[in-house]
């Protein structure tokens, strides 16, 4: 049971991350490769506050969301107007810089050894989450809140404008809306949510090191999104389930243990290609990933 609870917590964290990625990639057509950077910043900042101050989850979440959001503004400010691939390159660079800082700023981040023994989060400053099941319930709450937020964003005028930008940016600009502003906000919210996922991860595991927040992790989140499908709520949900649960199921097929990890990755790669051939819009998506 503990094993299943563990998988479910990880799944909830990935649901938050992939939903956040959907906001930038699926809704506003900004392909980012730095989701894991915000995830990492959130985890490390969250750890800092959990270690130093005895404050509640909501306070930490507010601080971390503001901090990751403001960090995202740095990229937005300079590169939101860059078209297509240049934006990808800018986010790639940001991802690599964040990873290098996490890996090398040993006095604060502990370098490659990471930080261990992180205290778990407190709700309303009173109830400390102890053990795996409280974390499971709490991660469900946060994931559900994220999905609710996304649903509301998609249905709101903001979401409608975003979808319009995705379909035809020039038409949106011609009707007098500031497309860059909308994209900046989408990126801001996405970064803030990834930061929250980071706090959850740090509090649950309770050990973080830079290897969790690499470029590969960003690519992993990106492929989860594209497998599931972009542009709606169901897609990212299914994508997260696909990339987290399917590899675990393969554990029970009885692969030889020494090659199991590699074989799982190969099957994952194959399924990526097969999904792109058979359903380029993703398992539950509504739209094909557009041209850059």
């Amino acid at each position, binding site marked *: 049971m503990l094993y299943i609870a563990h998988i479910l917590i990880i799944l909830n964290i990935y649901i938050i991350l992939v939903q956040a990625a959907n906001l930038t990639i699926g809704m506003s057509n900004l*392909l980012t490769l730095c989701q894991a950077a915000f995830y990492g910043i959130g985890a490390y900042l969250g750890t800092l506050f959990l270690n130093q101050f005895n404050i509640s989850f909501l306070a930490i979440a507010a601080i971390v969301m503001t901090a990751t959001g403001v960090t995202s503004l740095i990229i937005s400010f*300079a*590169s939101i107007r*860059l*078209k*297509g*691939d*240049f934006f*990808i*390159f*800018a986010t*790639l*660079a*940001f991802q*690599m*810089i964040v*990873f*290098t*800082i996490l*890996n*090398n700023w040993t006095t604060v981040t502990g370098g490659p050894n990471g930080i261990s023994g992180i205290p778990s989060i407190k709700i309303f400053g009173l109830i400390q989450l102890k053990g795996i099941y409280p974390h499971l319930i709490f991660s469900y709450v946060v994931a559900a809140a994220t999905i609710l937020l996304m649903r509301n964003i998609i249905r709101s005028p903001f979401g409608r404008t975003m979808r319009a930008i995705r379909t035809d940016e*020039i038409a949106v600009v011609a009707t007098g809306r500031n497309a860059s502003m909308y994209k900046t906000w989408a990126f801001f919210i996405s970064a803030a949510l990834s930061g929250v996922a980071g706090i959850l991860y740090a509090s649950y595991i309770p050990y973080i090191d830079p290897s969790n927040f690499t*470029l*590969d992790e960003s*690519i992993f989140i*990106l*492929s989860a999104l*594209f497998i599931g499908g972009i542009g709606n709520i169901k897609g990212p949900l299914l994508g997260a389930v696909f990339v987290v649960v399917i590899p675990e199921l393969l554990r029970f097929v009885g692969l030889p243990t020494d*090659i199991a990890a*590699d*074989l799982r*990755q*190969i099957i*994952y*790669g*194959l*399924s*990526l*290609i097969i999904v*792109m*051939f058979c359903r*380029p819009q993703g398992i539950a998506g509504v739209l*094909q*990933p*557009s*041209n*850059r």
Partner: protein
Amino acid sequence: MLAQFIINGLIMGVNYSLLAIGFAIVYNTTKIFHIAAAGLYVFAAYMFWLFSVPIGLHSIIAGLVSVILTMSLSLLCEIGVYRPLKHLKATNNVAMIASIGLLAIIINSIAMLFGNNAKVIQTVSSESLTIGEILITSPQLIQVSVGVIIILLILILLKRSGWGLRLRALSDDEILFKVLGYNPDATRTVIFLMSGAIIAISSDLTAYDLGLDPQMGMNFLVSAIVAMIIGGIGKTWTCLIGGLTLGVLQALVSGYFSASWQNAVSFILLLLFLFLKPSGIAGIKTRTV
């Protein structure tokens, strides 16, 4: 010391330039973000190791075999994945995700077959050449001489030969290319063969000097992409400028500061270029709406 750092940087820069050219000729013409190139890079290094260490062929023959095998794998990626996707009218992003899948398959197959440990090709300590204060090891000498010859050869081919012209035409305007009666698929075949060969040469040269492991591909590819961008997207010779700049910068940072920060510095350089001069040092100036 400064001269030594610059020389080391230039030698590494030649390697980056080669890989950047291998990535750029695919990227400029097909607009595919060919991440699987990192997989090809690792594949080439392992084939080189396989034929030169356990099988025991001479390094030059092992290198040739590795180049030919990598060219076939590169073509297999094109024929098996990219071309059918293109005929299904898939978008660039779909091709990129499929490329991530290819990368996962290639790298993990290699890890499964050969293990995750690092391997070395050249076990005896190599002779070195001393000019004044500068010391160059013989693998470095091979790297720089072979690398420069190959780069010059590619650039001349691209500028002077018929298929170089077709390649540039395809990257300019695919529809016009088809209207004039050329076959884009045939040109793409040549592009992927060429790219595979260049990636393999770059990989073999580095693996001979520094050894190999299954995870090295992404690191080198990311540096090569940085080299491509700071040189300027849209042309091929600019990769050389970008690669050399990046190599020297990284060598200076690791020489005077710390090797672990060299990635951060090269990406800050990339960000500066993206913000201030997205066309790179000598790229085509484009304006998109």
